[in-house]
């Protein structure tokens, strides 16, 4: 997290520095586009913007104000694109004349603080995780846990549930997953903030991580990149095919590969409990929102060329920041969907090269 923040900051500073200079002396070389929304992909967008400014002269001004803010801003039409970790339903897209496509993926990882238990040694199933978060399973010695963890000596500690206090796409994915695997979770529901039946809330990934680290017996959930960079003690999760998998870039990619994107209108797809024996069960993409009908085709063209460039050349940067790149077929589908963004003349504003 810290590393990503720093990288993001550095990139933003570089951007600010460049555009500042450009504004004073001469007009920027390329077009300028503005976007706002999700904080989760913000470091990567900054990185992409930095690389692309050098390559094509295009300048991106991205405000990481949160997914909710991004949706509001694009609906109000104050930005060229909005970004959200939570996909809008096809009906909502239709209603606001918006088009949606994914850019990059991440996942949610349960982390725990169990003295004497190595990272990756505990195995959790979806229903058990739901029972823990419902406050039904109260100690690590619970038979429900012992069943899945034969051979692991779990300490007899009370479980302290830690969740995100701030509204977040991470919570949205996590609660959507619980709602999918455990019928009992239906009364809580799935959203970016819910009425948690148990536990305490930390602000941001680092808030959750700090509370988990400070409380023996605590369990929490954080973004994959955060868990990886901070070496947190993650748990293995059982996926749809019954296998217990570890959260790795490969298992996220496996989840994306197994998904049926072609039949998901508006790319409304949460990669939860996807088939495939290596698939990590809580995976999700982050999305871009744009208006279908563009008054300023040049602006829309610049936005699409930015993401086209990122699809082609941005995977290495995504990997370096511990995001998971989209599989090629999904990128191709997204490129094809761009034909739906038209100018005042009704013609698509951007034709991807490939």
């Amino acid at each position, binding site marked *: 997290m810290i590393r990503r923040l720093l990288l993001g900051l550095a990139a933003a500073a570089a951007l600010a520095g460049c555009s500042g200079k450009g504004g004073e002396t001469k007009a920027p070389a390329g077009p300028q586009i503005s976007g706002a929304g999700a904080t989760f992909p913000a470091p990567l967008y900054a990185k992409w913007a930095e690389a692309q400014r050098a390559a094509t002269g295009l300048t991106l001004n991205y405000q990481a104000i949160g997914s909710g803010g991004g949706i509001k801003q694009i609906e109000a039409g104050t930005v060229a694109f909005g970004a959200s970790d939570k996909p809008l339903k096809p009906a909502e897209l239709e209603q606001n004349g918006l088009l949606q496509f994914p850019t990059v993926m991440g996942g949610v990882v349960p982390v725990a603080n169990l003295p004497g238990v190595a990272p990756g040694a505990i195995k959790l199933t979806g229903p058990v995780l739901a029972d823990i978060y419902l406050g039904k399973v109260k100690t690590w010695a619970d038979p429900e846990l012992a069943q899945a963890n034969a051979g692991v000596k779990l300490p007899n500690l009370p479980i302290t549930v830690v969740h995100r206090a701030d509204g977040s796409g991470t919570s949205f994915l996590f609660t959507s997953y619980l709602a999918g695997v455990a019928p009992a979770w239906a009364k809580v529901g799935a959203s*970016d903030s819910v009425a948690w039946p148990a536990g*305490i809330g930390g602000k941001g990934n680092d808030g959750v991580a700090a509370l988990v680290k400070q409380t023996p017996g605590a369990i929490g959930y954080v973004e994959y990149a955060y868990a990886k960079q901070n070496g947190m003690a993650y748990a293995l999760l059982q996926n749809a095919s019954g296998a217990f998998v570890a959260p790795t870039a490969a298992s996220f990619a496996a989840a994306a590969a197994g998904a049926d994107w072609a039949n998901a209108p508006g790319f409304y797809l949460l990669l939860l409990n996807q088939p495939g024996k290596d698939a990590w069960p809580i995976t999700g993409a982050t999305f871009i929102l744009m208006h279908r009908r563009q008054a300023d085709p040049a602006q829309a063209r610049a936005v699409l060329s930015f993401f086209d460039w990122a699809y082609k050349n941005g995977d290495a940067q995504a990997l370096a920041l511990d995001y998971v790149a989209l599989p090629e077929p999904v990128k191709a589908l997204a490129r094809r969907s761009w034909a739906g963004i038209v100018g005042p003349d009704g013609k698509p504003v951007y034709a991807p090269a490939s």
Partner: protein
Amino acid sequence: MTAAIESHEAAPARTAKGAVFDRTFEALCFGAATLLLTALGGLIVSLAIGGWPAFAKFGPRFFISSDWDPVQEVYGASGAIVGTLVSSALALLFALPLALGVAIFLVELCPVRLRRPIGTAVELLAGIPSIVYGMWGLFVFAPWFAHNVQLPIMTAAPPGSIWETITSGVPNGAGILAASLILAIMILPFIAATLRELLLTIPPAVRESAYGLGSNTFEVIRKVSLPYIRTGAVGAIMLGLGRALGETMAVTFIIGNSHGFPTSIFASGATIASTIANEFAEATGELHTASLIALGLVLFVITFAVLALARLMIGRQVNS
């Protein structure tokens, strides 16, 4: 001030240029004052309009219920209101004796050489950004608090006793009590500085007369100094309280952020400000946003009431 106005009025015929300048100056000052008032009025109106859907939907239930469920779109503010009032009141309880001690020491007892360094150090506390208090609270204070305060108290509680009930909770240092302690540190410099100024307004003759009558230091402070500044001191306390009520970042980090009524002193809770900070960025539903804005209005009203009371009391002190 009054002297200035009198001499101004008594001045002989002004030049035409001076009159124009005066008129412009007055208009500018009037504009500055009314602009601020208009902005304030606009703020209240826009908060009321923004929060109206929540008030209309839930009615009085918004203030009574503590359900806060963004999925079912049911919102009740009482948990956050209680959390705000309790954490601020506790913070005041912790900060007041210390602030009083600091102020009395600086004015009455402190060697002149130490007066400036100590005064500056206390005022420096006021300059620390609240996010720093939040980080420090979460990463340094909370573990210490859990280990050295919470655990001993919780383990010392006899099972089944009322003591156990009011100290139950998760021993990780995040909760209403810990948030109150952080808040106390944050409001201390404000209260201490105002109290010090108040103590300095006591005419030396008053204090010296008391000493002349044979009182010792404690008696002078208790029977002369404190009664002399009493009403003003209440105002100073209210100013501190006003700050505690609206504090956001530091509290959000350490209060534990759970909606609902706190059940013990170590329970986690939420305040109005922390709820808004946590949820506003990601609130998409109309009712969710409206409820958060309504919360803002509630906080505004509470803070406004406290500050108005403070002004009233300080005003009385100045006039008396």
